[in-house]
């Protein structure tokens, strides 16, 4: 967060959003509901600048600079400033009493992934599942999720440029990798 406040480069914004997502998945695995909305707010706040970077690249630096200032102002807010310490304290404590346990949380994440047919949502939910599998040391299954997430991501990016000649091929590749990964997700969901 400090890096984004000082510089606001595309890489730092991406790192901030990734760190917030990882923290959110860690809280979910531990069964915490508190602070997850704050992390979502942080991701969405940084998401506006990230969307700009994806769609405009290096074009129109003046408009990007306005978005950077807007993000920096949000990161200076009391809510953002207290979040890292509050998060660190929560992650050091034991799980709440209603906690289902990591396997139960994993099951919830897998069921959520199976509960959508929208490719964008599927990608978001599989990304959370991948991070959870990674955190639990299930790296082989996490790798299968990563492949689908990456391919769906590539397809999603190509959708922004509809003249792309490879759109169909990219979508077919994403579908193929999802067909391979779906049994793994079903295994965790059951």
């Amino acid at each position, binding site marked *: 967060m400090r890096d984004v406040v000082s510089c606001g480069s595309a890489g730092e914004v991406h790192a901030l959003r990734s760190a917030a997502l990882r923290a959110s998945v860690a809280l979910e695995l531990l069964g915490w509901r*508190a*602070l997850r909305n*704050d992390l979502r707010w942080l991701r969405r706040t940084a998401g506006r600048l990230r969307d700009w970077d994806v769609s405009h690249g290096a074009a129109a630096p003046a408009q990007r600079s306005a978005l950077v200032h807007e993000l920096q102002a949000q990161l200076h807010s009391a809510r953002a400033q207290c*979040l890292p310490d509050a998060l660190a304290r929560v992650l050091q*404590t034991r799980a709440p*009493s209603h906690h289902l346990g990591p396997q139960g949380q994993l099951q919830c994440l897998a069921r959520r992934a199976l509960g959508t047919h929208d490719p964008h949502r599927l990608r978001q939910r599989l990304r959370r599942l991948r991070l959870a599998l990674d955190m639990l040391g299930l790296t082989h299954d996490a790798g299968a999720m990563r492949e689908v997430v990456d391919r769906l991501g590539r397809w999603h990016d190509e959708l922004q440029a509809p003249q792309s000649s490879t759109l169909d091929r990219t979508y077919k590749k994403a579908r193929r990798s999802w067909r391979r990964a779906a049994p793994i997700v079903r295994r965790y969901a059951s």
Partner: protein
Amino acid sequence: MRLWIVRHAPAVDPTAELPDAARALTPKGRERFATAVRGLRRLNASFDLIVHSPLLRAVQTAELLAPLNKGTMQVAPELALEPSEDLLALCAGQSVALVGHEPHVSTTVAWLTCGWESLGPTGAVLFKKGAVACLEGELRPGRMQLRGLWQPGVLRKLAR
């Protein structure tokens, strides 16, 4: 609107090694407050938003209140300070719970009901750890009405 003001449940005592912000709820405090939450459910308490202080004991208390929450949760350092207009600006919803600390919770009750900013050194509202007050009315100092103040023992009895 309805405002539920909650003082955090009993936490471990501070020590030289343990910073105040990192004081966690005691196992007994957690268990008792979980029972008190069942008592709150009997009172038909439900929230659109839970705003809590970033101090660990308040985060843990808010987590225990989460089953009564239909909306979102938000951390707000304003709850670890004297009540202010900034705090009121965060309360977006028809039924909002604020989870904080003494002396600020009792000051908030007095400020919103009577418009006083300070009640003197002892405070006029007894707010045990885990106690809950319910205010109703317009969210402005002196414009709310105290509808209920339940000490934790009463809430636990309601849960039975």
